[in-house]
């Protein structure tokens, strides 16, 4: 008991003495409704946080070890579960790692479908980001509307992959597991109109969000690089780092898109970056559907699932830009059918531990949810 109560705080002003010890520990999460399966231990002095300590591990499932006991196709299914909010992007990272190890070049159509699915996944993930950011700052209508619009994109996923949230390894080594069904392109274009409706809603003037997030959780650009920030977080701090443009994979080098950058580095800037990125993603999907060639969607030798495909000996490090930042897989094979070692590098591992601790230091208690959710956080991909 660090808190000594001497005198009643709620009586007249004479009885309040400065001798009250205002230092105490405060737990944000893991059972807090607004924290996800993740906790932060805050040391608080009055209303100001003096130090923060992240407490991860509530979702640790040992993916890296699990993957050592499964063939690549089963790992593709497993890689969905790396992050609930953007399984298709994680599918893509895993599939690319195996492709590069096996020396397989997916067909052109498969590459375009992969990009379309990854970008749709990014849009719906940013919608969730907006939704949870709204609920963190006390604007609940935004949360409901964002999740409502997200369902239109989930309808598309259901049509193409067969599952609403989990595509079950739709993007698999060698291409994608099945072709787009009849009329899927038109459905996607229709859904993009819905997404644009959502973007217009997000762009509307919103006094709640503005007052709660402007100037809150400022991340300077030199701190951003020091603490390992990537993705929208670092772009809101003035560094234009985007794996899609800097280290292009799939067909991103043939598509025209911009990397939005802001220099303020606060929670509001990150929120604006989210909106800009959704716009760019819509643009990318439109282009990809325009350019979508005909042909095979998976290399012939991998079309039928096989149990004993050997992964050639080697080592790759594949990086992708997912909605939250830079995702990477370091895969080592010793020539057997299982990968020897898989290292999964999730963006939130850096965002949620060193970066969050840094941003929370010196912040007000009331700003914790705004800072926390402005980082586009997913505990699942931090714990792995």
């Amino acid at each position, binding site marked *: 008991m660090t808190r000594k109560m001497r005198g009643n705080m709620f009586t007249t002003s004479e009885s309040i003495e400065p001798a009250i010890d205002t230092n105490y520990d405060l737990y944000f999460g893991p059972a807090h409704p607004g924290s996800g399966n993740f906790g932060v231990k805050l040391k608080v002095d009055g209303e100001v946080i003096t130090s923060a300590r992240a407490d991860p591990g509530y979702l640790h499932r040992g993916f890296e070890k699990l993957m050592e006991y*499964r063939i690549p*196709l*089963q790992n593709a*299914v*497993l890689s969905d579960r790396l992050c609930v909010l953007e399984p298709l992007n994680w599918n893509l990272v895993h599939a690319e790692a195996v492709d590069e190890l096996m020396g397989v070049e997916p067909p052109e159509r498969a590459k375009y479908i992969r990009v379309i699915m990854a970008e749709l996944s990014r849009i719906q993930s940013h919608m969730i980001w907006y939704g949870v950011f709204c609920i963190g700052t006390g604007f609940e209508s935004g949360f409901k509307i964002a999740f*409502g*619009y997200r*369902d239109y994109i989930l*309808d598309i996923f*259901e*049509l193409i992959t*067969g*599952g609403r949230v*989990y595509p*079950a*390894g739709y993007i698999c080594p060698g291409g994608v*597991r*099945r072709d787009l*069904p009849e009329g899927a392109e038109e459905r996607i274009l229709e859904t993009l109109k819905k997404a644009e409706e959502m973007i217009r*809603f997000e762009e*509307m*003037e919103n006094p709640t969000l503005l007052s709660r997030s402007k100037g809150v959780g400022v991340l300077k650009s030199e701190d951003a690089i020091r603490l390992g920030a990537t993705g929208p977080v670092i772009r809101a701090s003035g560094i234009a780092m985007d794996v899609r443009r800097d280290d292009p994979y799939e067909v991103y080098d043939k598509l025209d898109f911009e990397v939005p950058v802001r220099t303020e580095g606060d929670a509001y800037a990150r929120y604006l970056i989210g909106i800009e990125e959704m716009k760019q993603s819509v643009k990318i999907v439109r282009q990809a559907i325009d350019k979508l060639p005909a042909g095979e969607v998976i290399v012939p030798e991998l079309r*039928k*699932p096989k*149990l004993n495909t050997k992964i050639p000996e080697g080592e790759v490090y594949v990086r992708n830009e997912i909605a939250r930042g830079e995702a990477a897989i370091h895969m080592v094979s010793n020539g057997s059918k299982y990968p020897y070692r898989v290292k999964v590098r999730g963006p939130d591992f850096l965002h949620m531990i060193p970066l969050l601790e840094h941003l929370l230091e010196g912040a007000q208690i009331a700003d914790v949810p705004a800072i926390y959710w402005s980082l586009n956080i997913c505990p699942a991909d931090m714990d792995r």
Partner: protein
Amino acid sequence: MKTLVVFKLLKNMVSKPMTVKFPSESIPIPEKYRGEQVWDSAKCTSCGLCSKICPNRAIEMVEAPPEYKENYAKRYPMIDLGKCCFCGLCQDICPTGSLTMSKNFFLSTFDPSTTINIPFPKRVELKAE
């Protein structure tokens, strides 16, 4: 900008809601939805590939109890839906198309023992070896 919000608000009052009234209407389920597995005994060759590819080991090849031995001579897939992640790899690998995935997703239950789909006509006590 304020007028835009008001306009949006008025529009929302008359527009259709995003949700549907579930039991009476529902959103269409696409053709290739991955729901509960349907198993066709006539096509099954007992190769056991579905059991080997299953990432969660939800499929087990079991022998029929003695009273069914005549019609079911070999080993057949028993699917534990409690373990199934509905990835559809069993459907993809099945060489004869015996195992397919249906659109049925009404699978919630209070009794965990009912999640096991036994490939024989009647529910019988099966002991896994």
